[in-house]
């Protein structure tokens, strides 16, 4: 996959070249957001559910040390082998070792953002092991040699005609076929063949339950189950923050997850894996990879409450118009922008600025993460560390001075209105970043305070 050194603004600029595609992307994701709203409004207790989910996750963060050990002990008692991985590299090595022990060179994998985060596919490829992603969207981006652009809708950036071309090339569908029904049927045939022939299956984990040592995997396609129940060895990879205390808490989270994600009342399959089936091996890899560091950051630890529904992406005006790939991280969008700087502040210093701070992400988050506040706080951390370009720092200082002095503020307003009216060419040019993809507005005749003086005070 392409390794990029471009930042969010540059990558978004690429994406914005095709204006029709941006409009289509924007509208498609907004439609998913609207489906979510429709579902949410049917539940009068929605806000109480969010509050409860948030409280449970807060309890988990404060008691994670115990829950991890409780989960480990119960999972072992259930016959599951538990592994611990400090970082991405160790995670990948554990998977590789397990596959080697079983002499497996071909594995089927269902959706796991953690394995994207760890770069598992690339790692195993270098070791001569073939991994096939079985979620349809993930299989499509895998064939296109691209990373997913959305955690729930991996190929939301792709048009059906492009998918048709890929399928023609790799799965032998006729040329120029782009009907989703026909393409899905072709993928079904292809992937069912994979499921039936693979001896190892890797799945992600949506929730792991400390009380019982079981874990829950949610899919609509049934791909996690097809892989796991046909394989001799089932490996589940999970971040340590996926724990919940008790099984009854699923009665909260499963009500929130899919309504928030796609506007469905629940995923088609919510599978509870507790013991390996007879003759099968089941492994769980508990992965840290920076999570314990984030846990120690008071301002940012709430990001670990995330249940990966993707609602913050669907609602985000920046995500919808810049596309998931512009975030150059496994998890894109608002939540990705507060998780990524924890992993590498230098590499992801641009992401907390890829937001208007409108707060829509925070309003839809089913576990009440204060996403836009954290984006704002990350900006402060990054500026203090000297990681923000000088131009931005100077601009912010000028803005600060202008907004704190009424005289300068009024003067700046006057100059702005005069310029827009008499010399629009001075701002309607490519030196002004605000001019990209939009025209500057018609200037009003006067400021609000001038209008107020004329129309209200004298009466």
């Amino acid at each position, binding site marked *: 996959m392409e390794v990029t050194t471009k930042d969010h603004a540059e990558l978004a600029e690429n994406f914005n070249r095709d204006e029709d595609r941006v409009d289509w992307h924007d509208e498609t994701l907004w439609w998913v957001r609207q489906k979510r709203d429709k579902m949410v409004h049917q539940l009068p207790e929605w806000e109480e559910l969010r509050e409860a989910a948030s409280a449970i996750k807060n309890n988990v963060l*404060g008691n994670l040390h115990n829950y991890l050990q409780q989960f480990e002990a119960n999972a072992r008692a259930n016959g599951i082998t538990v592994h611990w991985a400090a970082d991405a590299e160790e995670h990948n090595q554990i998977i590789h070792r397990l596959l080697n022990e079983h002499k497996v060179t071909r594995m089927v994998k269902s959706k796991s953002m953690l394995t994207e985060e760890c770069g598992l596919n690339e790692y195993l490829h270098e070791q001569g092991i073939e991994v096939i992603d079985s979620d349809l969207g993930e299989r499509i981006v895998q064939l296109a040699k691209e990373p997913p652009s959305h955690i729930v809708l991996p190929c939301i950036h792709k048009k059906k005609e492009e998918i048709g071309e890929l399928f023609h090339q790799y799965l032998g569908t006729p040329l120029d076929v782009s009907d989703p029904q026909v393409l899905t049927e072709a993928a079904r045939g292809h992937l069912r063949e994979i499921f039936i022939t693979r001896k190892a299956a890797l799945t992600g984990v949506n929730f792991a339950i400390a009380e019982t040592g079981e874990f829950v995997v949610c899919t609509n*396609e049934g791909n996690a189950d*097809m892989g796991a129940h046909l394989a001799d060895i089932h490996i589940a990879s999970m971040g340590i923050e996926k724990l919940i205390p008790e099984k009854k808490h699923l009665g909260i989270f499963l009500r929130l997850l899919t309504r928030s994600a796609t506007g469905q009342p629940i995923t088609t399959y919510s599978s509870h894996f507790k013991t390996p089936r007879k003759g099968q091996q089941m492994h769980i890899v508990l992965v840290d990879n920076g999570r314990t560091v984030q846990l120690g950051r008071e301002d940012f630890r709430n990001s670990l409450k995330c249940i990966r529904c993707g609602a913050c992406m669907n609602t985000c005006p920046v995500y919808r118009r810049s596309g998931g790939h512009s975030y150059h991280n496994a998890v894109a969008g608002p939540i990705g922008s507060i998780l990524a700087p924890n992993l590498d502040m230098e590499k992801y210093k641009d992401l907390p600025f890829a937001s208007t701070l409108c707060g829509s992400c925070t309003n839809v988050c089913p576990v009440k993460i204060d996403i836009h506040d954290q984006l704002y706080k990350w900006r402060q951390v990054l500026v203090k560390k000297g990681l923000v370009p000088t131009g931005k720092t100077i601009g912010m200082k000028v803005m600060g001075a202008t907004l704190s002095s009424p005289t300068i503020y009024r003067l700046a307003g006057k100059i702005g209105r005069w310029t827009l009216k008499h010399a629009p060419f001075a701002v309607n040019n490519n030196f002004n970043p605000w001019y990209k993809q939009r025209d500057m507005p018609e200037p009003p005749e006067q400021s609000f305070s001038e209008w107020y003086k004329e129309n209200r005070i004298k009466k």
Partner: protein
Amino acid sequence: MSSRDKILAAVANNQPAKIELPDLSAFKTGKAGSVEQFAQVLTNIGGKAIHVNSWEEIAAFITENYSTTRVVTPIAELTGFKGIPANSDPHELYNVELAVIKAHFGVAENGAVWITEDNMGLRVLPFITQHLAVVIDGGEIVPTMAEAYDKISRLSSYGFASFIAGPSKTADIEQSLVIGAHGPRSMTVFIMPGRF
């Protein structure tokens, strides 16, 4: 120091003060679930609800609509179809046309049914079959997932279990809903009165 010890030490060091778990009792309505709502939601998510009065009625429906040589069911009351012999290989179920299994209960708010491993015969059966049919007791419908987990806590334990809500589906290509991703192309729920 092992990675396990390192991770646990870092967690202990960095985790915030403990907060009590919330009281969830308000989410339980104490009412029975509505069969009408269950059937309606199931229909909305691409499933089909059929009211029946007996096993014979179910058998007749199956014979009329499916090629009976490829119907598999672990249900003892449904005679005339293939069962699942002990120690079968799950891969042998690849060509099953219709699987018929019992579910413990249904959930009105989302159209899901709760199926445990002992209902399935083999774990892969409800996923690999081309079409899935499930039989539930019409008196066993709970209103929401809050009551569902309450009920599960009173049922016997399982090695594997799943909430299944409708046929396998995907909308990964331009958000166009397609029924029949990798698993069943349809899901029929037979609602039968009385305990069985």
